[in-house]
């Protein structure tokens, strides 16, 4: 089992004809992901290395029946591309685009919640999702992930997601699914969404979560873990020695209170029973111990 995707997930790539879209879309296809089509307005009827390209998501879905979309579209068009996918009936949207304006993102995520409640958005500004050996949607290098479980991975940080997979795979500990939820202010999928799905997934027996300073997503995760998780969780929070961040006026201080610091997050997670590591390597080592004792 896996969460959100499996070996049958069919995928289109919005932006397949661009250089990033082509590189990563074809790499996903080579990994074994069922990449059925690409979408680029104005390039319908062409193909990219044998994969057909359509003008619209609607057309691509009608022709191929794909259920997921990989959005590799520049920031100025990404929000629109996400909504186009949702409108065409896509149920899983993975958007890797970095640099989407915050107002576009907040509006888009709330439109999805209101009008397309059954559509899941992963990202934006994320590495995507991989269920090793089954499906890879996004920019995660497939060869750093190891099939077979039993660990679920969820991360707010792009490259640290790879680091986490690498630490586990080096120790011969496989993963069921790895979700890179991205570090943007308004992600479509949260830690809690992923933790809840991992808790339900029979093959996932432990979860590694990688957080970072800022926001309160880790504090929310700690609350959920404390109230609703039976499976062991190991966490690492990046930014323990980071310089103090920019102060967002009085409003930032009033809204966030004491949340947001690495220490606050690590304390909240520890209090929820999470094993908190001081670096990604230690997180991997702790997880190896946990997996061997399962």
């Amino acid at each position, binding site marked *: 089992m896996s969460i959100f995707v499996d070996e049958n997930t069919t995928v289109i790539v919005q932006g397949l004809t661009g250089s990033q879209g082509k590189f990563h879309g074809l790499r996903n296809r080579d990994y074994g992901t069922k990449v059925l089509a690409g979408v680029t307005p104005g390039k319908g009827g062409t193909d990219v290395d044998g994969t057909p390209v359509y003008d619209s998501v609607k057309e691509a879905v009608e022709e191929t029946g794909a259920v997921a979309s990989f959005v590799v579209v520049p*920031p100025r068009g990404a929000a629109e591309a996400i909504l186009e996918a949702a409108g065409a009936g896509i149920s899983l949207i993975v958007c890797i685009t970095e640099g989407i304006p915050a*107002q576009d993102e907040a509006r888009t995520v709330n*439109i999805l919640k209101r009008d397309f409640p059954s559509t899941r958005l992963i990202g934006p500004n994320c590495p995507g999702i991989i269920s090793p050996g089954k499906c890879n949607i996004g*920019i995660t290098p497939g060869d750093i992930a190891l099939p077979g479980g039993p660990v679920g991975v969820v991360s707010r940080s*792009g490259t*640290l997601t790879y680091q986490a997979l690498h630490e586990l795979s080096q120790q011969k500990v496989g993963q069921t699914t790895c979700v890179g939820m991205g570090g943007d202010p308004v992600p479509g999928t949260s830690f809690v969404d992923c933790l809840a799905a991992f808790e339900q997934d029979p093959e996932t027996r432990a979860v590694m979560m990688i957080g970072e*300073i800022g926001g309160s997503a880790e504090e929310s995760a700690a609350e959920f873990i404390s109230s609703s998780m039976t499976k062991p969780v190991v966490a690492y929070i990046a930014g323990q020695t980071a310089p103090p961040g*920019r102060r967002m*006026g*009085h409003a930032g201080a009033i809204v966030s209170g004491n949340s947001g610091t690495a220490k606050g997050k690590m304390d909240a997670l520890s209090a929820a029973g999470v094993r908190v590591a001081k670096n990604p390597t230690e997180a991997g080592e702790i997880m190896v111990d946990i997996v061997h004792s399962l």
Partner: protein
Amino acid sequence: MDLFEYQGKQYFERYGIPVSKGGVAVSVDEAVRIAESVGYPVVVKAQVKVGGRGKAGGVKLASTLEEAREHAGNILGMDIKGHTVERLWVEHATDIAKEWYASFTLDRTAQLHLLMLSVKGGIEIEEVARTDPEAIVKVHVDPSEGYSLPQALDAVARAGIDAEVRDETAELLVGLYRCFVEGDCDLVEINPLVLNTAGKVHALDAKVTLDDNAMFRHPEWEEFAATDTTDEREKSAKQRGLNYVGLDGDVGIIANGAGLAMSTLDVVSQAGGSAANFLDIGGGADAALMTSALDLINSDSNVKSILVNIFGGITRCDEVATGIVQALAGVDMKSPIVLRLDGTNADQGREILADHVSDRLVVEKTMLDAAFRAVAMAAGDSHGGDQGERN
């Protein structure tokens, strides 16, 4: 990007938010000319992107030309918490009857916009939040729905804004929300929002943070960007498309992705060292950007060793390796480089570097090994960083 007060006020004016009549000055003569034109008494305000300028003597009332000249002369060039005052905002002084607070920002936890409005505005607003949270009306706004006048009227009534000015305050809030959304701000904050003795409401201060991601649709922001930072290294980094923050240590850091860069700082600290900077080359960096990053770190005289920590995803390790080779050939690198390379095209990257490995370019297998080696090298031990030294 944070705006200066005067830029924030100019930005507010585009959305119909009333502000005090005034102008910006970079010289004493200019400040006096503005004072003469807006009419005395005037307030001369230091333009710095840091709080506490009033307490530091950066805000002064002047009733005459002589006083305006004297204050402008004293405040220009003043140092406020490490920020040198290069500009003044000179405005007609307001007879304040009441000081309120208004802001729009994003509540990340709720994933909604948040209005905060209080009749207890002024410099102690954070104290109010702690001791009397009920005095701040907090209202979520759905970004997919927007903010309407009836909602604003409800908020001003709940906050206890004076009945005679509820309509104009509500209109001001709708304008402030438009500024926040259409103006692509991360934060708009008015503290204080004042009611003057003539019964009019306007913004006496302006705190605006723009969303850098929206720069592409705001060509008018160029003038703000031009005055954004005075730190030469950070300015230079920004021009090169690098996310750089200067720190005090001696291990230069280059990583791809903010999370990995922060994690690199963590492990350097855990290895007993101290980072000279935070530098994230972002996703999809090419060889030229990598060379540029090394060149930037090389210009920092505090740096004793450079730790390059790359885990390729959208960034390809062959590009990173090519960038390092180009830097070694074209830049006089003053410090040794310790490199850790994994992920997309890592094997090609290592092949490209194979002929260049020396005591000036060391490749380590893991992030921790690389951190220990870089810290040891910064301390003058070129053979350090072995596994045995970790404890």
